[in-house]
Structure formats: structure tokens, C-alpha cells
């Protein structure tokens, strides 16, 4: 089993008054930011085979019938919680149906926020907090409530590698 620490560029969620503190202290706000260390570990394959359908079901999604090479990665992050990435290989049509059948808009989106890109293992350098996705990448994204988020990212290619990112916002 390989444990792969990943660095994310997003900063710790500070309370608003941190800004006041840094300004009043005469230093730049970015000085209070730090690179958080997000660590990821893959579940063993037998555990992933059990956990993946349940994870997707909890988000109202159904694992495509011909999904292959199913993996689940657990990620520890300093800002966001309950971070998991479920990955599998599936025909693009089935990946699209997984989103559309659950009532979500699906299609190509050129940008993704940097912290989500980091969770997905995309190493492209962010610009203004966003990371450009490869052309042909299709997504659907939705919320389970005001804090639990789901972002399905279908990579270009046939069959496609499908990444289902689930995580929880901080309380504010």
C-alpha cells in the first residue's frame, strides 16, 4: 500500500478577523496563509469494492454497471472534511447517465477550483484559485446539503476514468 502525501495550495480557513489582525499588524494577509498538507491513502481493493457503491449511493448516484478498476481514496485535509475520491473506469455514456439520471446537469467545464483539483491529484499550477481542466473533461456537480459537496469529473478518453469527489465545507 502506498501512502502519498499531497500538497494543496489552498489556505487554512481563517476567521474574518484574521484580516483585521494582519492589517493592523502591518503585514500582508497572505503571510497568515500556509500550505496545508493533504494526505491521501487508498483503501484496499476489497474494501473499495464495498465502500464505493455505498459512497455513491449516499450521494444519490449509482455505480455504472460496467465500472472497472474501482478505487477509493481517503484524504485528510486541514480545511475540508470527509474527503473521499472514488475512481473507476467506465464507458463515457454510462458516466454521463450516472449524472443525468440523478437529475444533474452534465457537460464540459473548463475550470475547477484549486482545492478540488488538488484532491483529484491534478498537479497543474492554479491561476487565481482555478485550475484548467484538459479539453474534453466533462463534469457534474451538486450539493447534498449546504456543506456536503459532490463533484464528478470524467476525464477525456473511452473508456473514461471517472472521479467522484465528495467532501464537506467548513461551517463558514
Amino acid at each position, binding site marked *: 500500500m502506498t501512502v502519498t502525501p499531497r500538497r494543496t495550495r489552498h*489556505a487554512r*480557513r481563517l476567521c474574518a478577523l484574521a484580516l483585521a489582525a494582519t492589517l493592523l499588524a502591518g503585514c500582508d*494577509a497572505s503571510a497568515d496563509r500556509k500550505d496545508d498538507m493533504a494526505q491521501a491513502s487508498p483503501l484496499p481493493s476489497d474494501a473499495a469494492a464495498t465502500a464505493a457503491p455505498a459512497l455513491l449511493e449516499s450521494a444519490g448516484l449509482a455505480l455504472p454497471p460496467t465500472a472497472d478498476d474501482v478505487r477509493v481514496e481517503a484524504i485528510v485535509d486541514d480545511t475540508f472534511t470527509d474527503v473521499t475520491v472514488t475512481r473507476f473506469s467506465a464507458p463515457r455514456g454510462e458516466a454521463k447517465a450516472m449524472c443525468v439520471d440523478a437529475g444533474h446537469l452534465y457537460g464540459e467545464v473548463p475550470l475547477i477550483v484549486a482545492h478540488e483539483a488538488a484532491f483529484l491529484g491534478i498537479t497543474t499550477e492554479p491561476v487565481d484559485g482555478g485550475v484548467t481542466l484538459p479539453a474534453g473533461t466533462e463534469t457534474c456537480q451538486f450539493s447534498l446539503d449546504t456543506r456536503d459537496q459532490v463533484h464528478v469529473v470524467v476525464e477525456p478518453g473511452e473508456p473514461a476514468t471517472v472521479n467522484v469527489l465528495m467532501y464537506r465545507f467548513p461551517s463558514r
Partner: protein
Amino acid sequence: MTARYAYPPDDPATLATVRASLDDARTLSAGLGERLESTRSIALEGWTGIAADAARAAMVRRTTATESAAVRLGASAHAIETYRGVVVQARAEIDRLRAQHAALTTAAGHTDAAIRSFVANPTPAHAVALTAALTGRVILARRRETLATEYGLVIQRVAEAARDCIETLWDKSSGARSLARELAERDEARYSGPPGFRSDGTSPEGSGQQYPNGLGSMVPGTSTEHPGVPPWPAGDAGAGEYASETAMPDDYATHQAAWLASNLLDLKWPHASENLRRFLANKDGALEQDVDAMLGDLDVLSTTVEARRMQLGQLAVTQAQAAGATGPVTFPVSTGWQGYYATPDQSEDWYYATGGFQYSQQGQVTVYPPSTPGGAWTYATTTVVSTYDRYNWDGGKQTEILGRTVTDEQLAELHRAGLAREYDLYGTSAPSTTEG
């Protein structure tokens, strides 16, 4: 304000007071009727003639009317008491739902703990524990839905009891008409909205609908009715009940420091400062956000919104083609609420102003069949972007301000102490059109 699992607005103590007043009036009326009857029998005894008959008839009418009023007042008091009983029972059931929701929230928190244990020490035992936690999310998700349904049923019972009560008041007691009218006027606003959503009838919250995949039903022509902004999603519980604790000197010091800081930061982070000031201003209600500025500052948000507008257009073309449209057709657009987190690398101002928030799009998409045989289908999608967030403090961070360590908890305490107040952040952008 606890948006989720809120009590019905009627207070049992107030209802008890109303019921007691009606009971007193009933007792007085009944006593007056008995005295009128007694007076009639004594005063008119031995008096005969036309005038005596007229006086006797008049007193009988008044006695009957008074006794009838007593009966009506009694019925009204009974109706109020019955309704109060339903409200009391509903509050008890809502307390139970709140406790179960809190337990679910705690259980959900165990998932992250399991993730942390596994990542720190990825042994088979931790893998089994994590797998159990992840598969347990299905049960949590189902239980959450069940709680929302149960809450809806509780509120529905209260609404039905309120209507029964109102009908009795209208029918049985003219004296309670003003109360009945007030209840009737408040009824619609009070009980509208699906379970799990807040609707207190006084906020700028929308009452529109949302569609699966974002598209409503197709209509001929180039316009359709705007679907409106959907009801706001249920927010976090927040810091707790407003003004439920006594303000201490330290709370005043925290408030003053935060107020000063919010003013000093006005130029650098105008939206963050304004929102913090509003919190410290201790006002209930909602504060409108500049969603156009938000879209201008948050590139990923605006890019995603634009891409989804295009996808709505493409989806509408597919549906119009499938329906065999031969002229322009239009679909209403209303997407569900979607979370977005403004990290500081995107915009420090919005990070501190709101952090995580919800957004959705409303508008319409018009599809045009080809004007010449074999030509291309085209669309025009016009939407506004609406946002919602609850401004509250219930995190676990801290910072130094003016030489003091100020924690999220201290700011949350200002709300509980009644020195500051949580409120709703909402807004809608100007419309934008994407054609393809």
C-alpha cells in the same frame, strides 16, 4: 435562528393566555345570563299587560343571546386549547427530531475521524473501520431524508389543526374574529414551503421551483414565466439561540475590537467588512450581496456558470428536437442550489465575506429550429445567478486582533449574548445570455 426543524411559530404560552381570556369571557357571559333570567323572574313578577309582555320578551331575547354567546366563547376556548395541545405535541416531536439530527451530525463526523485514523495508520483494521464508516453514510443519508419527511408531517399536522381552529373561531365566536383574521392571514406564509426549508414570510426568500437537470416544461414561443428563486436551502444551526445568554464584559470588548477592525478594513475588503459590520450591528433579517461583483471576482464560479448555461442550451435543443418543434420554443430554467467555496486564493474579500455559499440559476432558454432545411438549431439561454448563505460563526479558528486572541467561538458568543446577530446573505445578479 435555527433554520432546520424550526418550531411552529405559535407559542403555547400565548395560546394559553388567549384560551384563558375566552374562558373568563364565557364565565362572565354565563353568569350574566343567569342574572338576567333571575332579574326577569323577580322584576316582572305580577306585572301584566302589553308593556309587561314586551319587556318579558325583550329580556328573554337578551338572556338567550347572552347564553348563546357563552356557548360560542366556550367553543372558541376549546378550539384554542385543542390547537395549543397540537402545538405542544409538535414541539416535543421536533425536539426529538432535533436530537436525532444532532446524533446524525455527530455520526457523520465520525467519517472524518475514521479517514484521519486510516491515513495516519493504514492498517487492515483501520481500513475495515473506514469502510464501515463510508458504507454507513448510506444509512445516514436515508435517515436524514426520513427526518425531513417526519418534520414535514409534524408541520402539516399543525397546519391542519390551525385551520380547524380558525374555522371554529369564525363560526362560533364573533368576538374572536380579529384573532381569527390574523391567524388566517398568517397561515399561508407560515406553512408554505417543503420540509426542510425555511419560510417565515418576512424575508426576501424566494418561493420558486427548481427542475431536474435545470429545465422545466417546454412552451411554444420565445418567452415563458420566470420560475423564481427557489426557497433557500436549510442552513447550519449556527451559534445557538439569539440572546439566550447574559452578555459579559469580555463580550463587549470583543464586539468593540471587531467593530473597529471591520471599519479599518473597509477599503481593502469592502464586502467582508460590510458583512461583519452587519453581524455586529445586531439586526435581524437579510443583507443583499453584490452577486455581479462576486461573479467578477470568482473566475471559476463565473466560468462554471457560463458553461452550465451552455449545457442548458444544448439540453434544450435535444429536447426540442425530440419533441419535433417546428418553431421557437422556450423552457424555464431553474437549477438546484449548488455549493461553492470562495478560497482566499480566489478572492480574500469573498473568502472572509462569505466563504462557502450556495448558488443557483434561473431564467429561460429559447430554442430556434433551423430557418433553412438542413440548417443548425440554435439557442439563447438567459439566466440570473442567485446566491444564499447564513452569516454565522461556529468554526474553531482563532486570531489575534488588537492584542487580543479572538476565536470563532467568541464571535458566536456575541450572537448568544444578544450583542450581534446571525443573518441571511442573499442576492441575484443581472441577467446574462449565452447563445449557441
